[in-house]
């Protein structure tokens, strides 16, 4: 595996905070989980009506689902297995090369 399979089961969430209150909730939730923000680049830049793309480690995926559902915050998962996407992006070529 690429990167020693370290991204197996990781997911990328796309979160849609629609109100200032939801922005506050999203900042608080993401502030308590170790996440990798893809867009925007820091919690302070999260605003309503702008999406938040966040990479979450596999062992925090369930927790984030639970928190967002509890607060009725709109979201979807746009990458369900990050390792697979990484393998697809370059893995295919390196396996070709291996062949």
């Amino acid at each position, binding site marked *: 595996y690429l990167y020693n399979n370290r991204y197996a089961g990781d997911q990328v969430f796309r979160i849609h905070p629609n109100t200032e209150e939801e922005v506050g909730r999203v900042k608080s939730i993401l502030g308590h989980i170790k996440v990798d923000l893809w867009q925007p*680049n820091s919690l302070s830049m999260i605003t309503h009506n702008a*999406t938040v793309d966040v990479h979450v480690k596999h062992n925090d995926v369930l927790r984030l689902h639970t928190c967002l559902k509890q607060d009725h915050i709109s979201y979807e998962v746009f*990458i369900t297995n990050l390792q697979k996407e990484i393998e697809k992006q370059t893995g295919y070529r390196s396996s070709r090369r291996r062949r």
Partner: protein
Amino acid sequence: SASQYDYEVYHSLEEIQSWMFEMNRTNPDLVDMFSVGKSYEGRPLYVLQLGKRSRPQKKAVWIDCGVHAREWIGPAFCQWFVKEALSSYKHDSVMRRLLNQLNFYIMPVFNVDGYHFSWTTDRFWRKTRSKNRKFHCRGVDANRNWKVKWCEEGASSHPCDDTYCGPYPESEPEVKAVAKFLRKHKKRVKAYISIHAYAQMLLYPYSYKYATIPNFNCVESAAQTAVSALYSAYGVKYRYGPASTTLYVTSGSSIDWAYRNGIPYTFAFELRDTGYFGFLLPESLINPTCTETMRAVKTIATGLLKKC
């Protein structure tokens, strides 16, 4: 060799650097290669200069890619630009005129240490790889480290944050080296372009404040023409405008610094996509993304040859 190099896959730092040497070796009349300095971990910061050696004081365009390590489509575009420029010089009158009348400084990988790290260890690394004296966290956001409104809104002073501005302006050797080069050549460099991803936007100053730049009409018109040219390729829409209102307020950015340093046209491209693949844009989309961006960059450069 140059003819077998695959421009439609992502390449490691080593592959890109040997490709640069090959471009330099096989195109003696149009290409020069030099280093503007060394990275934090001691790697050379290579730049290719493209252009006919006609007269010393030609106007110039600077294009850097790979400021943020995980944005791999950036270095792919810089390689694509070089390939297209050199291969079309003979048969494309627009490109021939550009290379005859302008020099292009192309820096395929600005953040060489971070890019190498994103290939070997952490695919989503963003920053440089400099060490911090007090914290275990490493790296500075190379687009928050420039000496313009440094470390104010939109940057973090905490070393573990992804938007960490650094211990002081130009603390990063990579930033200092490029700033030094652009300061030295400021009279000739008329456009600064920095390639990032992802969001599908074309941004221009200011990033650090909600205000209008003095030459707004010329820059706005150049941006509009550029995104129209981009759209003409595959119908992909890019938003454009001042970075502060189009994306968000950030301080210490390269386009603000370059603009304040006297370069009248400074742009940041946020290439594809808007968040289906994010940083993992598949290799199958390198071709269309680079083709459309090539059209945009050519119109920006062509605009420099006219009066605004």
